[in-house]
């Protein structure tokens, strides 16, 4: 009797053990190492010294590019997550409607998401490559342009392009999260709303939005994390140039760690990013869960 009880008590943990071990080795352990590095002295060639206190964090915050890059990161996350959620939602509504070729349309929407991000970023880089990119070729051949245009004259425009590419590649993810939510809504709600005389906007506001909220919460929290940590787009298109004006925190810390060989400051930036992400994702989840309880 006792052994059965003990077995029952331990069995779930036994099953969980492999995943817990994997998580410890591949997630928890590296996080702890980065935390330890962020408080250690590290030379340019990579030799790790003793405890450095908050020196790395002070270096990171005093980095000349830090202010600009934090601002860029905020613009990057808010615009990419915000606009891709808006457009993704609209696309999901369209794909949820009943029309011929719906399945084909759905697969087309998946394409950008199913392609590797580095490849997509490289392709976009070729599309907008100064005067000799594909965009110019197409527009010149169609006769829309008479002379080739440099689509990247200032770094602000280059950063806007990067945000645009970010939005484009993120839309499918939101679309499919929302689409899953939309399909789980019982048609009876809409019928009841129609009977009560609700139009499109009222149904959207009082039926659709509250019921897809859990899907939106999931997609937004995951997106905040993905987009904040997204590296290939900025790195492929501008590498943060000129003078870190188009960097986000993640590309800056990569450049500091592996290009400038300032590993101490880079690990500190990484810890700062980690904390910001935990707070942002946590806050969003608390707020949206409170909203759900109020429903």
């Amino acid at each position, binding site marked *: 009797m006792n052994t059965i009880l003990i077995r029952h008590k331990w069995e779930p943990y036994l099953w969980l053990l492999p995943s817990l071990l994997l998580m410890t080795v591949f997630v928890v352990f590296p996080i702890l190492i980065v935390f330890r590095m962020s408080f250690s002295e*590290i*030379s*340019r*060639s*990579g*030799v*790790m010294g003793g405890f450095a206190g908050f020196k790395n964090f002070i270096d990171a915050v005093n980095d000349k590019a830090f202010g600009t890059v934090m601002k860029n990161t905020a613009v990057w996350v808010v615009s990419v997550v915000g606009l891709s959620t808006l457009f993704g939602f609209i696309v999901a509504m369209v794909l949820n409607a009943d029309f011929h070729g719906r399945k084909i349309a759905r697969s087309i929407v998946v394409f950008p998401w199913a392609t590797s991000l580095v490849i997509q970023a490289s392709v976009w880089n070729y599309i907008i490559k*100064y*005067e*000799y990119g594909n965009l110019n070729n197409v527009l010149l051949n169609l006769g829309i342009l008479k002379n080739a245009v*440099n689509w*990247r*004259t*200032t*770094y602000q425009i*280059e950063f806007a392009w990067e945000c645009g590419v970010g939005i484009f590649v993120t839309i499918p993810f939101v679309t499919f999260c929302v689409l899953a939510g939309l399909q789980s809504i019982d048609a009876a709600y809409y019928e009841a709303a129609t009977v009560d005389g609700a139009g499109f906007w009222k149904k959207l506001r009082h039926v659709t939005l509250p019921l897809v909220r859990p899907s939106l919460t999931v997609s937004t929290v995951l997106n905040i994390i993905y987009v904040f940590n997204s590296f290939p787009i900025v790195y492929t298109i*501008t*590498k*943060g*140039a*000129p*003078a*870190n*004006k188009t960097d986000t925190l993640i590309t800056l810390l990569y*450049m500091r*760690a*592996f*290009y*400038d*060989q300032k*590993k101490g400051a880079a690990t500190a930036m990484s810890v700062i990013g980690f904390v910001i992400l935990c707070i942002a994702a946590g806050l969003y989840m608390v707020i949206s869960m409170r909203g759900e309880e109020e429903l």
Partner: protein
Amino acid sequence: MKKLVALLAALLLVVSCAGVAMAEDEITLDVIICQYGNNTENWFLGTGMNGTSFVNKFETENPGIKLNLEVVSWDDVRSEVSTRITNNKQPDILNIDWFSGYQGDGLLMPVKDYCPEELFNDFFPSFIAESVVDDTVWAVPDLASARALYYNVDILAEAGVEKVPETWAELEDACQAIKDFYNGEVYGWGLDMTTDEGQAAFSYYVWNNDGGFLDDEGNIAINSEKNVEAIEFAIGLYKNGYTNPNPATQTRYDLQDMFGAGKLAMVIAPNNLPSYLAEKGYTDVHYNTAALPTNEGAKPGATGVMDRIMAFKDTTLSEEENAKRNEAIGKFLTFFYTPENYVGWVSMEGFLPAVNSAVEALVASDESFAGWLKVLDSCQFYPTANEKWDAMRVGVINVEQNALIGGDVKTLLDELQAELTK
């Protein structure tokens, strides 16, 4: 049964002893080589060395020494090495452009500990001098390249530029003529201020204006008047519309492609540009080379780039084991620099040699080498022996990129000087 167990145990003992004996006799060297081009990996690890690989040939000729050789791209090599160092797994032999940081951290062995004297005396003395810190040589040169001005003969002729620019004033006139004639469809001058190689641009201009990274006493002098004047001139070329439009993101390879496609009239490039253009299929471009234009009154400053091979300490070994390891490293170097192997390596990627014994064979195989070797004689090299070199390199690129978007060159260089000397 007991007999069988005893027999098995005895067999096991013999096998394990043999294993130990083999392991004692054999030494494995961890080697990191940088990827210079498409052929590097094939030459070291594939079949690019007359049907075999460097590693195979070396191991056959040097029994008892195994090579664990890895070819790493230039983009990744620094991070790979520094990650290895952080984890105490530094390679035995490293090929890279920079050594002073590793030397400053006490990680390198002096060259005299492992390099046979005969080989050491074969290196160009001026090259060896670039790897000396505290009167000790810490690395040996593996190859070099020199930079020159390449110009498109047809574009210059069509735009009415009769003489290839030799001074900065003539360069501005030529660029203006090209701008007027082609109305922006062809750029006059290639400017690469990217994080890839922006330090090269910095050196072209400061060295051709009697400036430099260091002063005569070897102190950092990044904000000298000559340097400010030189960088202001380079930024002026961009502001006047004489250059490619995005110098902060258009790398040397973008410029070489534009040059090959006839979109760029003049570009500063290494001596292997012809093989690059041929490989990429740019066969229509009609070009020639000249010395870099110099500011009026300044000494011409040819730019050379040199890479190195160095050996790391292994503090876990006994004195005897270390002596054996040093001997193996010496054998590696001797094998690499043997003319029979080295000439093939240098000419395959279109570089210039670092040892005297290779010169004759190289000149015999390609006459243009003689001209380039002369340029190499007058070249200046980056001050990589200075322990702040890496910070200088990153710093000057940052200054250039900030200046491109409107920053004041003098203020930026003053700030960099303060940061480097604090």
